């Protein structure tokens, strides 16, 4: 009987001691290991590169838009010039002269 009680007390004490120990450990966890400086440097560099890439991309987009607009204007100018050339080539050309006529046009 006495042995049983002693064993029970011992188990309870062991449990209480474990809970106290665990609580103490939980209240003050181990400090994080110091970060790797090379990793930090890489991360910072990655961030900078991302920002730079975004900047370059926006600059390229802006320049591409400007180029496309200029290209469109240029193509329109070329089309207008071609149309003028075609019209000039096919436009009728007539002027009043004092020559005797080779033939006459009359009501057909």
């Amino acid at each position: 009987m006495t042995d049983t009680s002693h064993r029970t007390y011992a188990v309870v004490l062991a449990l209480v001691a474990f809970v106290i120990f665990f609580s103490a450990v939980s209240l003050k966890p181990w400090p994080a290991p110091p970060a790797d400086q090379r990793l930090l440097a890489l991360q910072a560099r990655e961030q900078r590169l991302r920002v730079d890439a975004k900047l370059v991309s926006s600059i390229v987009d802006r320049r591409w838009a400007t180029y496309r607009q200029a290209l469109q204007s240029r193509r329109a100018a070329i089309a207008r010039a071609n149309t003028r050339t075609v019209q000039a080539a096919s436009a009728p050309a007539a002027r009043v002269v004092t020559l005797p006529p080779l033939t006459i046009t009359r009501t057909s």
Partner: protein
Amino acid sequence: MVTRSFEAMGTEVEIFLDASEGERAESALDRAEAEFERLEQIMSRFRADSELSQLNREGVVEAGPDLVRVVELALEARESSGGLFDPTVHGALVAAGYDRSFAELPLDGPAAGDPGACGGRVSVEGSTIQLESSTQLDLGGIGKGYTVDRVAAVLARTGSCLVNAGGDLAVRGGAWPVGIADGLTVELTRGAIATSGRDRRSWRRDGEAQHHLIDPSTGRPARTDLLRVTVVAASAVEADVLAKIAFLGGEVDVPRVLVTSDGTVVLAGGLA
């Protein structure tokens, strides 16, 4: 310079070709004359066996590419002129008395009939041309312009040329002095000229003057102070259409010469 004159499409055709006399030039002129005959056989409303007569008779025809093209050009002109130019004036022309070739037409006769309505529906799908009931086509002027353009293109392979089909004329290359009105000559170096008026192809019915330029809005020969209008344009088709539109009072923006009933000659559209 080689020349040839012959009768075709109810008028006198003159061809001037800037080439040396010889077999090549003669062959080109033969081809030109044959082209006039070929296209007249397709587009004449006075030949019962033409494609156009078949269309007018049956209301539908499987046409060759030339008739299809001319009908398309005529419909485009009707659309762009708001109906001032209209190929569906056949019934009105017949009602006015122009029911046979002009050479056979009596200069006077009984009163003109009821012209009926112009502006009937015409559809072109592929090579099929179909007319609305009681609609018939006259392609006299525009068909002649088309032929002149075609023949000028054919002759241009041989040399500079002028093709004149009774007033619808076109040039390719060279500089050609063309008489337009008394004492007025125009040098044409590119394009075409056409004249429309009531000073020729006119007749009487019951004593009333008739002519071949029908006003589609009334179905009767147009009443106007203008005697004739001559127009310079890029092609003979365009010139023919614009000359008719100008004669009927429409706005055109091309070099033109207008002659009024009292003989006044007016130059317009930058012609100088």
